């Protein structure tokens, strides 16, 4: 019997690399058009963004700081994607993670930052996972659509945080709805402090800190989890086929719960970076939309931890570059929101617009060869 036709419509590299890159280029072209339309010079803008975000250790410090956030939320979305769930609740989970971190840092006297970081990670993961637990449970047991419930939980999280900061955690006499500053002992070493001993001078002011390493570690752990463990096998199998999972004795309820809890925990972990590493206190809206950017990051990164890592750095660059634009030009920071929207649009929703012609092309090429 002859070897059957290769049924894949196109090679894997095209799917994993070519399509995202083309989508990204399209998004970039449209972004440039937007910049032109508001009467600015896109070349100039890109210049400013690049020097602002990558031109100094200071810029890198911010880029990596944001990237750390996005790695966590991107991984969160990616893990849920593997189980074919769309977790839009990263924002709320990260907010609650912040609450967990703040409690750990404020209410326990820590002797050293490393212990505090471990405990804060635990707190962040528990709170983030807890916030994902209800939507997960409702999806698993009641079939309530996770997208809607997680959106709702984002709003509810904002209200909870609001209540906690206004009525519970605000120090006596303080006017802002924010927690007290964390004690000096839980101060996390920044890249400046980490790199100084090995002779690299890194900007002192930039907030990138040791949690970057935690995020990179998380990328590895998620990779191993998804592709090297039984649980990952089950998550992927469930994500590909629910009836298949049932057949193989993989409990949909269990996988839905576990995948979402892991996802929530990862989103919650982000708080170790922004709350503990940067602000060193809990403020309203400390997540700054990173939960949503996680969606774009996971889509761009094709839900692979390495892809997520790269996409997070790209978005970190966009974020820091955008902040620079807002500082030095009259281009509002919202330009970044637009770019982010375009990336989600092209890599996510309009994926087929790029894919279909490419598939035709590869098909024609193959037929031409045969």
């Amino acid at each position, binding site marked *: 019997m002859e070897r*059957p036709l290769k049924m894949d419509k196109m090679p894997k590299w095209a799917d994993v690399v070519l399509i995202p890159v083309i989508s990204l280029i399209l998004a970039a072209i449209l972004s440039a058009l937007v910049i032109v339309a508001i009467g600015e010079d896109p070349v100039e803008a890109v210049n400013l963004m690049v020097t602002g975000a990558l031109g100094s250790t200071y810029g890198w410090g911010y880029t990596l700081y944001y990237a750390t956030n996005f790695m966590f939320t991107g991984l969160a979305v990616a893990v849920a994607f593997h189980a074919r769930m769309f977790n839009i609740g990263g924002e709320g989970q990260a907010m609650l993670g912040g609450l967990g971190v703040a409690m750990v840092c404020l209410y326990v006297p820590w002797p050293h930052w490393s212990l505090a970081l471990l405990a804060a990670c635990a707190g962040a993961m528990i709170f983030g996972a807890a916030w994902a637990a209800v939507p997960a449970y409702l999806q698993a047991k009641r079939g309530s659509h996770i997208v809607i419930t997680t959106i709702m939980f984002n709003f509810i999280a904002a209200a909870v945080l609001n209540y906690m900061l206004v009525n519970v955690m605000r120090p006596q006499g303080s006017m802002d709805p924010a927690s007290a500053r964390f004690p000096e002992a839980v101060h996390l070493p920044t890249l400046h402090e980490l790199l100084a001993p090995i002779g690299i001078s890194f900007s002192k002011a930039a907030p990138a800190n040791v949690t970057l390493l935690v995020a990179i570690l998380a990328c590895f752990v998620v990779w191993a989890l998804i592709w090297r463990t*039984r649980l990952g096998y089950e998550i992927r199998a469930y994500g590909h086929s629910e009836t298949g999972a049932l*057949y193989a004795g993989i409990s949909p309820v269990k996988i839905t719960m576990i995948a979402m809890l892991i996802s929530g925990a990862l989103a919650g972990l982000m708080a170790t970076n922004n709350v503990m590493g940067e602000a060193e206190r809990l403020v309203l809206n400390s997540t700054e939309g990173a939960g949503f950017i996680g969606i774009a990051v996971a889509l761009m990164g094709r839900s692979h931890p390495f892809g997520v890592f790269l996409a997070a750095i790209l978005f970190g660059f966009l974020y820091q570059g955008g902040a620079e634009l807002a500082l030095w030009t009259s281009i509002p920071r919202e330009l970044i929101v637009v770019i982010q929207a375009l990336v989600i649009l092209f890599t996510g929703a309009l994926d087929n617009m790029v894919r279909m012609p490419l598939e035709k092309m590869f098909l024609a090429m193959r037929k031409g060869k045969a």
Partner: protein
Amino acid sequence: MTVPAIELKGISKSFGPVQANKDISISVAPGTIHGIIGENGAGKSTLMSILYGFYKADKGEIWINGAKTEIPDSQAAIAAGIGMVFQHFKLVENFTVLENIILGAEDGGLLKPSLAKARKTLKELATEYELNVDPDAVIEEIGVGMQQRVEILKALYRQADILILDEPTGVLTPAEADQLFRILHRLKDEGKTIILITHKLREIMEATDTVSVMRRGQMTATVKTSETNPQHLAELMVGRKVLLQVDKVPAKVGAPVLEIENLHVTDEKGVERVKGINLEVRAGEILGIAGVAGNGQSELLEVLGGMRPGTGSIRLNGSPLALSGAGSDARARRDQHIAHVPEDRQREGLIMDFHAWENVAFGYHHDPAYQSGIFMNNAALRADTERKIEKFDVRPADGWLAAKNFSGGNQQKIVVAREIERNPDLLLVGQPTRGVDIGAIEFIHQQIVALRDQGKAVLLVSVELEEIFSLSDRIAVMFDGHIMGERLPHETDEKELGLLMAGVDGKAA
């Protein structure tokens, strides 16, 4: 010569890399019943869907009543007088019969007059063709036979002169099928042209005037029904001599392995699908379960395989198995040495995007042999896969290929290899050869018989009576959730089983 009602010229159609139709030409005379047969995936449905404007052909022409007709969509097909009853019905489940009938054929922008008119027309059609349906019944609450009537009425309401039926009897009992053929003959007598897709040779021989055979996307022959015979048609279908007899020695039946008592199963919608059955499968025998699709066999298999809960009691080698809650899932079943070749290999038995070697662990991924510490031992898994691929002659012998890139028969071989190689006490098999070509059928049948010869119990569910006959040591017939009776293969025939399958107790009759 009369002008053909339908003439297709050089129709080709690809779905991505799959060429479903290759340069097909066919001509159907008016006022005849024209059959189309072919294996699963031969391209029959695709061809008819092109005629009905559901798909667009890549190449080719359609001529209706002697005029070249463009059929870009179903609207055009309807306008050309074509009606089609699809293999999978196209009804809006929560609409009433009446609403489904007028959908797309309304008169004017408001519904009221359309509904009134349709109600009247429906009454006339009902008396004319014995097609009684309750116009106000909601589709999801009526049976499949009734739903099929709605589909036929839909076509007649649109005044179709050419009626295409795609495997209409798959869901019908023999009696219902007989009634359908009566209706078809009446329609034919009125001058309507009918195209009937089926892979049941008996139906072709009984009902059609001419028949076309498709294989691998190509039209291999068109012959007058009166000038051919089933054996010849079967050969045309699969492209070589057919041999459907399995060599097997008489069963050496041992102690009961599986005992089922008063088993009830209710589906997600709350409908009871298995209504208190009792069965026994012994060591060293193959129990075949025959029945028209949808009479509870699938649910039976799923309960035994741990895919859905049930009530009652089942015992394996004397010890009870859980039917719901903890210990009733598929993993527990496997731990109890029950293997399961599912009915739908693509949706259940395999993860189509996984590599073959990943699929070889599917369901057995907890096996200690596949673990190393907290990680999975992928190297061991791949080695195991290589062995199985070789033993079962899976082609191509490439463990890195994704499951979706194997042909149907080879996909099935992977599943069968995985399950049989576990050397289970009980093997559950559903539709083992659906969509599998004859060579693979032989191989798979041999494997099943070999397992039985090792003294293992096999429960086989199949809608193909031939398969049931050739494999089973004992046959049970299911109808409407009940076991209608048990027969030994050499003491019964297709006719008796057909009656049982229709719910008529052969002995009483």
